[in-house]
């Protein structure tokens, strides 16, 4: 069975928009974080799709890179979130606004 490439791309775009909406609208730092992961994975899906469609393995190779970086980023990010929670006793990013004038 041959699924047309459009489907993959539409799914990927949808995932990306969900991720963006999550990053921009949610207030819980962990959910924002997960939304970022969602965006990364939508990109991964696009890479894999084109790799298979074009018969070129470089795209798949790239996905591994992204996953590695995402794993590292997740470790650092979660550590930051824990450190922040210890200081502020909240994960509401509206209250974490010390990065201003």
């Amino acid at each position: 069975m041959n699924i047309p490439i459009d489907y993959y791309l539409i799914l990927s775009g949808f995932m990306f928009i969900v991720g963006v909406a999550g990053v921009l609208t949610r207030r819980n730092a962990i959910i924002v974080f997960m939304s970022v992961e969602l965006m990364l994975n939508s990109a991964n899906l696009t890479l894999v799709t084109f790799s298979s469609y074009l018969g070129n393995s470089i795209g798949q190779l790239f996905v591994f890179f992204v996953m590695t970086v995402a794993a590292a980023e997740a470790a650092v990010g979660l550590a930051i979130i824990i450190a922040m929670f210890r200081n502020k006793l909240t994960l509401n990013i509206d209250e974490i606004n010390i990065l201003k004038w």
Partner: protein
Amino acid sequence: MLQLIYLTTLLPLIGFLINGLFGKKIKNEKIIGIIGSGTIGISFLIVLGAFFQTLALPVDQRQTIVNLFSWIKAGSFSVQAAYQIDQLSLVMALIVTGVGFIIHVYSIGYMHGDKGFGRFFAYLNLFIFAMMNLILADNFLLMFLGWEGVGLCSYLLIGFWYDRKFEKSTTSDAAKKAFVVNRIGDFGFLLGMFLIYLTFGSLNFNDVFSRAASLNIPTYVFNFMALFLFIGATGKSAQIPLYIWLPDAMAGPTPVSALIHAATMVTAGVYMVARCSIIYASAPAIMTVIAVVGVLTAFFAATIGLVQNDIKKVLAYSTVSQLGYMFLAMGVGAFTSGIFHVMTHAFFKALLFLGAGSVIHGMHDEQNIQNYGGLKKYMPKTYITFLVASLAISGIPPLSGYFSKDEILWYSYANGNFLYWFIGAVTALLTAFYMFRLVSLTFEGKERFGHDKHPHESPAVMTIPLIILAVLSAIGGFIGIPELFSGDHGNQFENWLEPVFKPAQTRLAVFGVHSHAEEIILMVVTLIGVVGSIYAARYIYIKNNKPAENLSKRFKGIYNLLLNKYFVDEAYDAVVVNPMVKGSEKVLWSFADVKIIDGLVNGVADLIGRISGSIRKIQTGVAQFYALMMMLGIVVALFWIILSL
């Protein structure tokens, strides 16, 4: 000797460096004095050698240019550091080094024990260096270097005793006044120099003067040139309206007053006018201005001199007055007579100042002539030399002042008009009167000083220079015996200088025909008047003081006017100085500087502060807001890329 002329400036410079840099370490006054005056003595011998060498040359080859090095070269503009030795510069150089040497020697005695002994000789040597450059320069720029240099030395030496009080303020104020007033004149000199370069395309004397004589240049250009240069001369040579600095310059040590403010520097203006005679001869209107300024300065300064009580002040006004005579001579085209008077005046005025210095020295820094009296028995040598100088300046034949002053008076009548002669002759009477008032009050009559003073004659190192100058004052006039007496071979001094002034005389050509009878009548009238006023002064100030007191009481207004020097200083303060100070304070400082300039700078900073103060609110600190902005940015960028595909 001619090629060695550069040594006459180099040696004083070396003397200046040695005494200036190591004077404090040498400490030994003898060594400093020998270095200081020795360099000038050798310079004098060199100039003397150059003089005799030039004398041996044929008349039309008596100008020698000694080229040292190329000083400035920029495009078509080039200035050589070169010295011009001719009849005029030799006369001046002989005066400066000769009288300068005598005064240097005198200073060894006068400055004995002063803590600034080495510094004093260093400044004096620097002065001779600058003055010789002024005289020997073969172009306007090198002359200007000397011109500024002597001004600087004058400033340094007036303020030499910077820790002493002088009148209502300090000597440094007097020095500053001299410097600032001179700068006003120098500005005129600079403008004149610019105009000369613009017109003739060169600053070299020979180029400029030959072009001035041959090219066809409109008179108004010459007028401006002559006027600007003359403004420079009024500053340096203390003429109306810039004479006010010279009386204050008496704050300096007395040898300085003798050397700089009587014999040499103040005659620089006369020398400059004589050097540029062709330019002045081409500007008859300015010649009239010079004659009028000269004769008025002579008269007004003499009237002020009548009532002054400070011995040096009297001599200072006398100097201003005599300089007025010299400019009168320049103004009526009698250039040789003017230079002749420069020379004789250098002798007797230096002598008068040195004599005054000897008196001040003997009287322990007392300068008020009302507190002198009867000093002739304590200091006979000073008295006799002072008397010779006073007779010379009054114009008693056959002393030097008689020949030079009489020649000026004669030419002011022959080339000018009766009024010049009349004011000049009245000034001569006033001169005789104030000089013999000074002599009588100082050396004769009753002793008016307290018992704490023990007047004494000065040491030989001071009296020998006095005697030499007295001899020169007595016989110095014989080189310029007028044609009237000397007969066929005419006036020697005039014959010597004649080639320098020939182009100017040819252009002027105003000499009316006058008989010797007129000359004799005017001479006799002046002479009778002078002798009369000497007798009057001696009578009033030695025997019977009543007439002077009566006069000063009856004409209290005039007396006060003279005593306060016509309130010229006050008038300048009110019209120029105070408006300048107040204007700078109220307008330039409080308004222009604080409000406008500071306001502009602070305003720019304030504006940026305000704008960024409102813009920085964008930095909310909310991470999601930043993310939103990033996304919007990406969307815009994407749209742009897509639309431009």
